[in-house]
C-alpha cells in the first residue's frame, strides 16, 4: 500500500548500498530527479539495471554509485556515446564497472519473468551471437514439443524499481501514459518500488494512449516530483529537452567539466533541500 513521501525520505527508506536498482522509462518518463537524490545521498555499490542507461546512468556511474550495470543499449540516443559509461568501462574511472549486457528483448523479458513470478522467460535472439556465451543469465533450452532450441533468460527481481509517472492519487494509485517502456514490469518484478509523479491529484485521469494504472497495493512509495523526468519528458506535461541531450555530449566528455556540472546542478542544487520546486527540478544544461 503506497505511502506518499517526500523524495528524500522515500530514497532513504527504499534504497540501500549494494542494492540492485532498476530505474526505467524508455526515452520517456525517465526518473532523473530520483537519480539525483540517490547521487546526493551518496548511494554506493549499486547494481544498476536499465534497458537504455541513457544520461541518467551516465551521471550515476560518473558519480561512482554503481559497481555493476545490467543493460541492453548504452548510448545517448541520436547523439552518440555515453562518455562517463565509456570512461568507466574503458579506463576504470571513477572505478571499474562490471557489465552484464543483453538484447532489448532479452532484458525486457527478464523483467516479464520477474513480474510473472516465473524463474525464466524464453526468447528467440541471443542464438548465434557472442552475447550467448558472454552474458550471464542466458541459457539454451529445448521446446518440449518440437525440440527447437531457444534462449532462456533468468527472471530479474530488482531490490528496488524507480519510475516516473504523470499522476498519483492520494491512495497512491499511479497513472502513466504515452510510451510505456517496461515500467509496469519493472515495478511488478521489484521487491520495493518508488514512483515519482508530476502531480498528486484527487482523481486520476484522463490519461492518453498507452494509459496504464499501477494500483496502490503494488507500489511502496510515491513522491511528488514535478519536472522530475527532465531532460526526459512526461507526455501531457513536458517535452523532451533534445537540446540538453545534445549539450550533454560536451559536458560529459571531460571528467572535470562533468564533476563541476554535477556539483553545481545536482549536489549543491538539491542537497539537504526540501522537495524540488518545478523550477529547481528543471535542471538546464550548464
Amino acid at each position, binding site marked *: 500500500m503506497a505511502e506518499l513521501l517526500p523524495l528524500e525520505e522515500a530514497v532513504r527508506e527504499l534504497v540501500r548500498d549494494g542494492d540492485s536498482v532498476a530505474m526505467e522509462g524508455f526515452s520517456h518518463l525517465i526518473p532523473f530527479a530520483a537519480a539525483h537524490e540517490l547521487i546526493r545521498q551518496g548511494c554506493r555499490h549499486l547494481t544498476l539495471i536499465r534497458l537504455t542507461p541513457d544520461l541518467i546512468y551516465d551521471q550515476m556511474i560518473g558519480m561512482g554509485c554503481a559497481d555493476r550495470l545490467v543493460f541492453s543499449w548504452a548510448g545517448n540516443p541520436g547523439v552518440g556515446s555515453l562518455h562517463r559509461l565509456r570512461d568507466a568501462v574503458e579506463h576504470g574511472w571513477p572505478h571499474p564497472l562490471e557489465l552484464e549486457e543483453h538484447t532489448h528483448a532479452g532484458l525486457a523479458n527478464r523483467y516479464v519473468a520477474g513480474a510473472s513470478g516465473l524463474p525464466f522467460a524464453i526468447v528467440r535472439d541471443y542464438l548465434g551471437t557472442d552475447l550467448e556465451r558472454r552474458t550471464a543469465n542466458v541459457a539454451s533450452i529445448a521446446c518440449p514439443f518440437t525440440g527447437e532450441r531457444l534462449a532462456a533468460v533468468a527472471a530479474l527481481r530488482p531490490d528496488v524499481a524507480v519510475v516516473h509517472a504523470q499522476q498519483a492519487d492520494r491512495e497512491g494509485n499511479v497513472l502513466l501514459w504515452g*510510451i*510505456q517502456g517496461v515500467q509496469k514490469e519493472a515495478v511488478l518484478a521489484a521487491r520495493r518500488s518508488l514512483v515519482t509523479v508530476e502531480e498528486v491529484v484527487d482523481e486520476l485521469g484522463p490519461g492518453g494512449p498507452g494509459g496504464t494504472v499501477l494500483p496502490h497495493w503494488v507500489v511502496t512509495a510515491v513522491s511528488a516530483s514535478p519536472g522530475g523526468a527532465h531532460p526526459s519528458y512526461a507526455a501531457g506535461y513536458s517535452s523532451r529537452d533534445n537540446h540538453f541531450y545534445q549539450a550533454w555530449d560536451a559536458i560529459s566528455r571531460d571528467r572535470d567539466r562533468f564533476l563541476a556540472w554535477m556539483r553545481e546542478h545536482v549536489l549543491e542544487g538539491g542537497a539537504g533541500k526540501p522537495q524540488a520546486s518545478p523550477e529547481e527540478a528543471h535542471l538546464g544544461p550548464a
Partner: protein
Amino acid sequence: MALPETSLAAPSEDGREPRYTSSEMMTVAAARALPNGTVCFVGIGIPSLAANLARHLAAPDLVLVYESGTIGARPSRPPLSIGDGELADTASSVVSVPEIFNYWLQPGRIEVGFLAAAQLDRFGNINTTVVGDYASPRVRLPGAGGASEIACCCKQVIIVMPHSRRGLVERLDFVTSVGYGSGPGDRERLGFPGGGPSMVITDLGVLRPDPGTWEMTLTEVHPGVEAAEAVAATGWELKVDPRLARTAPPTERELSTLRALDSLGW
C-alpha cells in the same frame, strides 16, 4: 539527426560541382528500397530519415514501427530519439516494450528491418558492441538493443552504413546480430523466422547476398563510383556481381525532399 559527414561526393553529369553528397545518395537508395505499404521497423538516424523520406515520396502508406512501442507512427517533426512524444502522439497504437518485441517483432510480422552497423562481415553479421577485446575494449559501442532481434526476425533486413575497411571487415570483434552466420543453412539451424540481410546500402553502392553462397556481393555502384573503389574500401575480398548495375542518381524531387527534411533536423 545530421547526416554523417563524408568527403565523397558524386560529380554532376556535366562535370561541375557535385549535385549531392554520397551520403545523400545512400539515404535516397535506402528510401527507394521501401515499397509503399511495407511494414518497417526503424531506428533513429539514417533508417528513420530514409523511411520518412520514402513516406514523403513513393511510399505514403509505409507503416513505421519503432522499438519504443509506437506502431504506425506518422511523425511530422523529426524524432531525436525513438521515444519522442511525436511518435506516440501520431501512432495508431502504443504498446509496451515487451509487447513490441514479443508480439510484433519476434513472430516475423515486420517486413523490413533497418539496421546500422559499426562492423559488418561478408555474411552480413553485425557488430555494434565493442571494437577490440570485449574485456578491455578500444571502443565501447552501445550494444545490441533491438538489433539482434530485428536481424533474427524481420522478413528482410536492410543495413545502411558508410563504406570503409574499418566497417566492412574480414572478422568481427563481436557478433551482436546474426546475418547469414557462416553461410548457407545457418539461419535455418538457428530457427530464425526472418530471411536475413537483403541489402547493405553504403555511400559507394549496394551489396546483396549471392544466392548460392550468401556472401555479400557488390551488385550496384552509385553514380561516379567504380567497382574497384568499393572493393578497395572493403576489408574482405569483395566479390563483384558480373551484372553490376549503377544506381540511378537522386531525382530533383528526392533531393529537395531529403534536404527539406534534413533542414528541419531529421
